[in-house]
């Protein structure tokens, strides 16, 4: 389990996270919903140690992360993988080398084993025929599939997804959504997704949390979050229709 306690993050004079608290229970899919630029990616980067909060505590498997030594931090985050926005593939390597890279760099398997594993995961995410391609030749959806295959090469127990469907067409979005769910079920990975895509929340989420004003304002089970009386529904899901109505553009 990952527990985030009273995290504060500031960029210059702008406070992005203001005493955020969150629990990510093991084995579940937690979705953090929030508007663009609200600090969703910042939260993920804090948990991974890519950003240093000004105060607060983060527990990964009951061990305090922020006050840990560099070596301990590496050990704690070794169980976390992440799919970054747009995949963040290494553009000097082809798809096969991109997927193989983490295992090859850490020399955790022989070249034959790595190749076998690359083919296995490429098959799993549906890119078996594209291993020779360079990242520039891939579509947005394909890039994310490759990044997903790369992310699971080190067998993470937790997998974070930063806006996994942003910028994708509905078909590619659906494929990525299904993949995330398949990976969670087949590999039993605890999943944390940050997004503003309601369809993704509907399809994936078990727990839904709303990030607003630098804090998690509400956290509910998905079944609860989509009821009309839910504060999450009211403040995020219904807000689009409310704004349209207020501006006189209601389509109802």
């Amino acid at each position: 389990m990952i527990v985030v306690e009273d995290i504060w993050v500031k960029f210059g004079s702008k406070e992005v996270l203001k005493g955020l608290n969150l629990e990510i229970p093991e084995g579940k899919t937690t979705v953090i919903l929030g508007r663009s630029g609200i600090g969703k990616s910042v939260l993920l980067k804090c948990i991974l140690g890519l950003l240093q909060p000004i105060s607060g505590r983060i527990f990964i498997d009951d061990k305090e992360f922020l006050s840990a030594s560099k070596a301990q931090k590496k050990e704690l985050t070794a169980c976390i993988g992440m799919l970054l926005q747009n995949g963040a593939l290494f553009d000097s390597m082809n798809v096969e080398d991109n997927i193989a890279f983490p295992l090859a760099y850490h020399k955790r398997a022989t070249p034959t084993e790595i190749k076998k594993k690359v083919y296995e995961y490429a098959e799993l995410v549906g890119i078996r025929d594209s291993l020779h391609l360079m990242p520039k030749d891939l579509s947005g959806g394909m890039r994310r599939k490759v990044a997903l295959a790369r992310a699971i090469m080190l067998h993470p127990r937790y997998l974070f997804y930063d806006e996994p469907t942003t910028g994708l067409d509905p078909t590619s979005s659906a494929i990525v959504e299904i993949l995330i769910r398949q990976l969670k079920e087949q590999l039993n990975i605890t999943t944390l997704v940050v997004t503003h895509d309601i369809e993704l929340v509907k399809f994936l989420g078990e727990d839904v949390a709303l990030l607003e004003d630098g804090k998690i304002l509400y956290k509910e089970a998905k079944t609860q979050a989509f009821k009309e009386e839910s504060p999450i529904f009211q403040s995020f899901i219904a807000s689009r229709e409310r704004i349209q109505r207020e501006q006189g553009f209601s389509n109802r």
Partner: protein
Amino acid sequence: MKPKSEWAIARNTILSAYRDFFYWLYIGQFPAKEIWNQFRQVINDGWLTIFWGSVVQGIFVMWLGGFYGDQFGGYRWLGTITVFGVLREFSVLMSSVLFAARVGTAFTVEIGSMQMSEQISALKIMDIEPTTYLVIPRVLASTIALPVFVGFSFGVAIISSWILSDVFWDISFQQFFLNAFNYIGGDIIANSLTRSFIIGFVVSLNAVGLGFYPCDGAQELGRTTTKSMVINIFSLLLIDLIIGMASTQISMGAPS
């Protein structure tokens, strides 16, 4: 709090690159394979630029020597002047400037765009230290590559200047080289190679370090690349001046 200026941020970025370089060189695994790959890449990227730069440089030095030699009747010294100029100063300076322009700026843009597209974050998530994987190989490869380029430049510049002096002033191979190497010792070549070794290290570490400058977009990356070039030109001139003056004083004594 007063916001920091661009140059202050650039300075801090470079200083932390130096600190991280030595820290990870000491503590991390030695990336021998990546250094070799980068060395081949740097040589591959830079050799043609250095070749043509050296041809032009050889012609330039020979032309000045020949022109003034013609006026003062000093043809027999043309080879000496040219070879001395090339070995002592021009090859180091010209190769370093071209190196900063061709290889240094490429490093800044490459690392900068990796940072913008979150490839650096991806490395960290995979438990790979960017300094070990990206910085150390580029810097050590460049530290070895620049002296190689300077040695290459010596040969190309001297040969091109001799060919042209033969064409313009009808100076034979023997005449050109007769006196040339009588006045030039190994210390001059060693001095030039030492300077290029230090310049290669500083220029590449500045360039790679500036790649980590926090860029938000293409325009800022462009400005950072310009900064990389400006900082590197000043750095290499300063290193060349300081080591050049110090070595001259050591070998010849202080000017009276």
